[in-house]
């Protein structure tokens, strides 16, 4: 049944309108640079998504579902978009593109993610994912004809295409095994290896496409290159929002409670991802590359919650998705402010940040401690939820590896703080920080602390949402 009810998809419609305006701006001569309104519009979108009804209703012939989970992810995609576009307002060099182009593609990618949050049919999921990815492919090389950026983009496109192809191939297996591609029907199917080996293999292959977006080992190799190659503003986007899309789909599909084989594979990937990501990050000197490897490690943590499954596991993974986004947006916000003429930031550029900009140094410290997982920041509480659910599921070894990884990770995150607070630069760098930029940095840091101190309401909401998709 079509069941088209425009009221339910107001956030999506709002995004379409936003895209339409940006499109007109990008082809006109005079309006290309007046894009200051986009972050504000994105915030309005977030409010629309947050207050829209989440009844669990199906639309478009059961391929689209409006439920708590989808509205949560739509809200945080909008919020993320607001910060990313706000971050990119003063982006310097875009090569041949203009700002309206840049914002158009960024918003288009976010639009794909909005759709992804609600899609509950495998082919629709695939299409929404491609919409989000293709816009991102175009976005990456926008960096003043930088060769590294182009290289990063090509890497991302080629490997991304292969990952998508594998995912699509997986769908064919699922279709062959279970004779349906609708998530609500698949939910009640048997997903054990003994009964449905083909479908289970198909599901694993389908997962791979999303593990690639999530930069989980062994599909992580693009992340450091893309982070390093893309401009700071683009990297802030590529590092955060696309992962939300991957996580929401993984949450929906892990609700199938697939056989132990898939879970074991994912758990091993997660363990390897954390350990490898943290170990390699130890020796990085480029901050964005370092964050690339850190994101590989964090992907492992999210997967831990997904492997644990159950209402708590899925809710914990979703909560960590939010935490991950906020932590990374915060640290990227700082990096973008520190960078000189949009260049990459090396560890040594952080020296003496304390004296040149105390605000940025403080925000950097908060986000770095959050990334380690130190209380009272969001990073800790998010990890605690994940560890609880993983232990509850009996994956003791993964919990041990996860906590030991905190000890591995502490050095390189602390190194950021150490450079900012205890080392001095010979020639103090000038940092131009507008009052607005400073206050948004503070708001983001407070957000990191808020999610760490008062997580109960959001978590309770997510718990309800994930219980909803399990039944």
């Amino acid at each position, binding site marked *: 049944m079509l069941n088209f009810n425009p009221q339910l998809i107001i956030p999506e419609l709002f995004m379409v309108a936003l895209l339409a305006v940006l499109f007109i701006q990008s082809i006109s001569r005079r309006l290309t640079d007046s894009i200051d309104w986009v972050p504000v519009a994105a915030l309005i979108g977030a409010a629309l998504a947050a207050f829209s009804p989440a009844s669990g209703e199906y639309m478009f012939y059961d391929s689209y579902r409006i439920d708590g989970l989808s509205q949560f992810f739509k809200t945080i995609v909008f919020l993320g978009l607001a910060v990313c576009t706000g971050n990119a307002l003063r982006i310097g060099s875009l090569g041949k593109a203009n700002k309206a182009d840049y914002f158009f593609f960024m918003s288009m990618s976010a639009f794909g993610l909005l759709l992804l949050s609600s899609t509950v049919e495998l082919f629709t999921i695939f299409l929404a994912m491609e919409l989000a990815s293709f816009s991102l492919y175009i976005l990456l090389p926008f960096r003043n004809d930088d060769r590294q950026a182009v290289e990063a983009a090509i890497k991302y496109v080629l490997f991304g295409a292969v990952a998508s192809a594998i995912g699509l191939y997986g769908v064919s297996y699922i279709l062959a095994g279970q004779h349906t591609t609708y998530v609500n029907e698949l939910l009640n199917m048997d997903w054990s290896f003994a009964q449905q080996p083909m479908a289970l293999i198909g599901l694993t292959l389908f997962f791979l496409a999303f593990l690639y977006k999530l930069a989980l080992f062994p599909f992580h190799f693009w992340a450091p290159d893309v982070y390093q190659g893309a401009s700071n503003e683009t990297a802030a986007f590529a590092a955060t929002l696309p992962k939300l899309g991957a996580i929401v789909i993984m949450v929906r599909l892990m609700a199938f409670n697939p056989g132990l084989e898939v879970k074991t594979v994912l758990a091993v990937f997660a363990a390897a991802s954390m350990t490898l990501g943290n170990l390699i990050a130890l020796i990085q000197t480029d901050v964005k590359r370092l964050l690339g490897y850190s994101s590989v490690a964090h992907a492992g943590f999210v997967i831990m919650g997904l492997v644990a499954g159950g209402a708590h596991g899925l809710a914990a993974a979703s909560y960590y998705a939010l935490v991950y986004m906020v932590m990374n947006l915060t640290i990227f916000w700082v990096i973008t402010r520190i960078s000189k003429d949009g260049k990459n930031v090396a560890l040594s550029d952080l020296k003496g940040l304390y004296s040149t900009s105390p605000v940025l140094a403080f925000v950097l410290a908060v986000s770095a401690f959050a990334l380690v997982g130190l209380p009272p920041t969001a990073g800790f509480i998010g990890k605690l939820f994940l560890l609880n659910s993983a232990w509850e599921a*009996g994956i003791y070894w993964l919990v041990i590896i996860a906590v030991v990884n905190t000890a591995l990770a502490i050095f390189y995150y602390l190194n950021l703080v150490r450079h900012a607070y205890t080392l001095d630069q010979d020639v103090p760098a000038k940092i131009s920080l507008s009052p607005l930029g400073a206050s948004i940095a503070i708001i983001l840091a407070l957000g990191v602390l808020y999610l760490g101190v008062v997580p109960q309401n959001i978590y309770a909401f997510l718990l309800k949402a994930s219980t909803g998709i399990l039944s």
Partner: protein
Amino acid sequence: MLNTGFPLLSTLIFFPLLAAVVLFFLRGDHTVRVFTLVISLIECILVLPVMTGFDTTTAQFQLVEKTAWIEPWNIYYYLGIDGISVLMVLLTVFLLPICVLCSWKYIGQRVKEFHFCLLLMTTACIGIFSALDFVLFYIFWEAMLIPMYLLIAVWGGPRRRYASLKFFIYTLAGSTLFLAAIVAFFINTGTFSIPELMEHRYSFQFQLWTFMAMALAFAIKVPMYPFHTWLPAAHVEAPTAGSVLLASILLKMGTYGFLRFCLPITPAASVFFAPLMIGMGVLSIIVGSLLALGQSDMKKLIAYSSVAHMGFVTLGIFVFAFRGLEGAIMHMLNHGIITGALFLLVGLIYERSHSRELEDNLGVSKHLPAFTGFLLLFSMAAFGFPGTNGFFSKLLILLGVFKVNYWLGVLFVVGLLLGMAYLLRLLLNVGWGTPSKAPGWKDMNFREWVYLIPLGLMVIYLGVAPGRALSFLGPSIENLLVQFEASKEIHLEAQTPEHPLPLALMPRHGTAEGIAGQQLNTAAFDVPASSPYSLPREPKSMVAD
């Protein structure tokens, strides 16, 4: 039982935090100093009801505050103090004004941030000693690392970067497995509440590895012998106030952890590991003392002496005797006072000679008589001269130790003698060594008198009349031992390996898991807490099927 209805502990915890926020809006170094001093004095006044009103007849937790916090995971905001923690809370609060005063001149740059860190430290430390929820405890436990790291890394000596990093990595790495143990406790019992966890019974094997995970965190914090290497580095590089906080409060968190978690929650494992812990304690005493004997840097000397002192405390805890435990807790307090004061004295002389080497600080007795007097007093207290507080608490530990093992008592005495040796060496050189470099140095000024006098009075008061302080401890220790003896027995009888550590994924999630996960904190998980024979349950039985 002291229960005011007013959230006194929360006020004690969050008042400094609030003040720290206000601090950001102040201008001028002097204003910041005065403001923090005033705040610290207000904090001291706030803590007075705890000192005067503390009910010394009950072992129950007092000033309890309990509010639901993260309900889906059964995490509570749960505070309370008993005889084991009350002295540490008092010590933490009273050290704050002393830390502010001793940094008055020493800290010349980034003054505001320095006091910000001091206030944060106070918040975290009081939180650690009063938290009764495991998650809340862990939050304070880890959060404390950040201001301490900054205190060493920003205002420290020449090798501060190395020392601060070592401190951070060491202590954080130690507590990671502790987190895993906390999670395991929760999944097994369905609660993070420490008093409830104490009433549960766990299988021996489960106790063994949770004890190890917790003990690693605490042993590093104490620090016990093989894990002590971060301490001298951190102490030497930290500013005076940082050293005082490290020695007086931070180290106590380790022994407090043993008393609060290891003994009551994992009694059988505590008995099992007691020989190891005692061995490490004795090694800490002997090796720490010998190392202290060989130092030429005064701060390093006192740092190593801390290792030895904490060895005494560990010994007192793991003989499981009433006097031993009493002495251990008293010595935690006394060591906090004495070593804090010794670090203050080193900081004081450093401000004059700009060196911490013994040979640069020879023969000050003639020129700085007041300073020498205090040095004499605190050194005597440190090696346990009768009439000082150090004597009394060591005597109690010795009583406990002798009762349990004669030979251990002999080793203990050797440790005492070594302690006397290194402190006399310090005292002789600084007081009467030649050639004297002291002419021209000024004796203690008013500010320095102000912050040393209270400590000096405490040394004598607690040495002559320790009854009041001891009365705080009695019921709690008794209760601890009664519980301990009872549950120790049960466990040595029932050594069923109910909770091995499986190294594989367990195929147990049925489709009903969503609902089962929901019920995590409902009645299914709650064992009648009071029945002592609610023996270790298979942790998973209540889930899924």
